[in-house]
């Protein structure tokens, strides 16, 4: 996967500053293999869209070099890069019909009339819009416009397709449908895709690998499952999925585990030492709600604390229980609605427990 010949896009220590003072992107490195689906995920202002714009050629990199298929492209204008792109607001040409929109990239490449017609029809069929060629973009629904934009980015068979929050304007159901559609297109065409979004579930659904951005830096670059199960720092743990945080101080380190004393006299907890300083440094413990057992007997799990039930929300497949521990009243436990699950009452004091393996000690 990391062989040089298979790498299509390479960001080599890329920096970007708009005003010459603050860096929007600080030292960005990324290798995208051929056929891979890589997502850049992060909150707004984290620099992810800027990276995409630099790759498309709309913004020059302040420092560093971007390679496409081994060729540096910093000095290649956007129209010569041959990269397909789906824009946030689709950017369909309103004065052209759907078919003319799709024919545009083929016409500027000087293809013959019959060949263009052929490819346009194929591209429309691919997104299930055959017969819509004579419509104007304004006569289509948001989802249809989106599909036209996707097929226009693919019709000239680029090696690389970029997508800049393409599903942001769609409603939830349509968005999920489009996620699968884009994923299937990616699988069928084996085209390399770089996708930008701030929606973590979108990123988890579609990507081979996700680069989590914050503050102009990639916090972690990993496949979705690794990102969720093995976050390397407190930002990633908090940004991807639901996460319980406990603050404390490292008391001792013992191989891959460490002992942490919780703030506010919450007691000692054994955790996986992932990203901590030495003994005495502050740490954030990250714990997924579904990895916590509630009502467990003391000693049944490696860690056990008593907690007061604050709130119970019935969500069908599980019951979301917010409990108070010493120093944390926002601790969430998911109790699955399985046969014979624990029945809790508000205000009840119970025991919660978890394995040290599931509790990751991260940076403060």
């Amino acid at each position, binding site marked *: 996967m990391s062989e040089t010949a298979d790498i299509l896009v390479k960001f080599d220590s890329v920096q970007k500053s708009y005003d010459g003072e603050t860096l929007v992107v600080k030292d960005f490195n990324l290798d995208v293999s051929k056929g891979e689906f890589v997502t850049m995920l992060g909150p707004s202002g984290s620099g992810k869209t800027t990276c995409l714009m630099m790759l498309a050629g709309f913004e020059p990199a302040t420092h560093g070099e971007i390679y496409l298929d081994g060729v540096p492209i910093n000095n290649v204008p956007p*129209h010569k890069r041959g990269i397909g*792109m789906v*824009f946030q*607001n689709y*950017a369909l040409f309103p004065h052209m019909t759907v078919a003319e929109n799709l024919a545009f990239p083929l016409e*500027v490449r000087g293809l013959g009339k019959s060949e263009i017609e052929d490819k346009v029809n194929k591209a429309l069929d691919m997104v299930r819009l055959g017969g819509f060629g004579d419509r104007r973009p304004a006569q289509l629904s948001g989802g249809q416009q989106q599909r036209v934009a996707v097929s226009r980015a693919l019709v000239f068979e680029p090696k690389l397709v970029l997508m800049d929050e393409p599903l942001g304007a769609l409603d939830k159901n349509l968005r999920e449908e489009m996620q699968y559609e884009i994923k299937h297109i990616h699988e069928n065409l084996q085209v390399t895709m770089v996708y930008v979004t701030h929606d973590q579930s979108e990123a988890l659904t579609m990507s081979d690998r996700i680069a989590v951005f914050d503050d102009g830096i990639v916090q972690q670059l990993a496949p979705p499952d690794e990102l969720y199960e093995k976050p390397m720092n407190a930002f990633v743990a908090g940004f991807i999925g639901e996460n319980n945080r406990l603050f404390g101080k490292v008391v001792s380190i013992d191989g891959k585990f460490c002992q942490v004393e919780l703030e506010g006299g919450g007691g000692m907890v054994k955790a996986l030492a992932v990203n901590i300083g030495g003994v005495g440094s502050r740490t954030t413990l990250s714990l997924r709600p579904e990895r916590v057992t509630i009502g467990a007997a003391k000693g049944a799990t490696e860690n056990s604390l008593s907690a007061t039930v604050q709130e119970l929300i019935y969500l069908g497949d599980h019951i979301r229980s917010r409990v108070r521990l010493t120093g944390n009243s926002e601790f969430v436990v998911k109790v699955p609605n399985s046969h014979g699950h624990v029945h809790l009452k508000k205000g009840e004091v119970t025991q919660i427990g978890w394995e040290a393996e599931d509790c990751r000690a991260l940076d403060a």
Partner: protein
Amino acid sequence: MALPAYAGPLETTWYYTFRFLCGCIFLFLITPILVIIPLSFNVEPYFTFTSGMLSFDPDAYSLKWYEDFINNTQWTHSVKNSFIIAIFSTILATILGTLAALGLSKPHMPYRSLMMGVLISPMIVPLIISAAGMYFFYSNIGLSQTYLGIILAHTALGTPFVVITVTATLVGFNHSLTRASANLGANPTTTFFKVIMPLILPGVISGALFAFITSFDEVVVVLFLAGFDQRTIPRQMWSGIREQISPTILAVATILVMISIALLATLEVLRRRSERLRGMTPG
């Protein structure tokens, strides 16, 4: 806006007063234009209604001033001049104004408001001042009393209209369309003609129309800059009033009013048609 059912006497009174006032304003604006039309058919060389005209005597009306206009070489020459000058200055103003508006709408344009101010200053500075300035400047470089001089002067006066109308169109312009075009492989020239131009065309056309009319009815600059050879219609009308006091100018004025109405109507029809074709408005 019909009167609602719950309107009291005060609202009803105001409703009709308001309509009456609006009518008066329209009348005030349009009467001076309308009154010249019957007067241009006057058989007598007067600028007032004769008793024959008021009693609708057919002998009190004639087309002699129209004949005079057509047969008088001074007039026909001025018509030719007006069209030559207006057409060329409109073409120049449209090209320059569109380019300026495109440049000024770029997101990272420095000194935008300063440049905008300079460009539209011919519209704001009193015309007599611009005209006097142009007179001295153009005399020094040998452009006074030439067609080129008047065309350039009228270009300067017409450009602000194009800049303003095109800039207004560009406010609603989605700049990711140019990015999309580049991304799809179109070079900047193709992008301009295939994507930008069709979308800003309504602004360009109305700007061009304003520029044309500005040049067509401009008299102050022409008074300063034009020699006898470059006399335009307004210039000829001006001397018509001062020197000859002939109702021919009423005939000319009537023809000009008709041309203006026809021009505006044609453009409006074209604009609606193209908008409908581009699917920007429903229906």
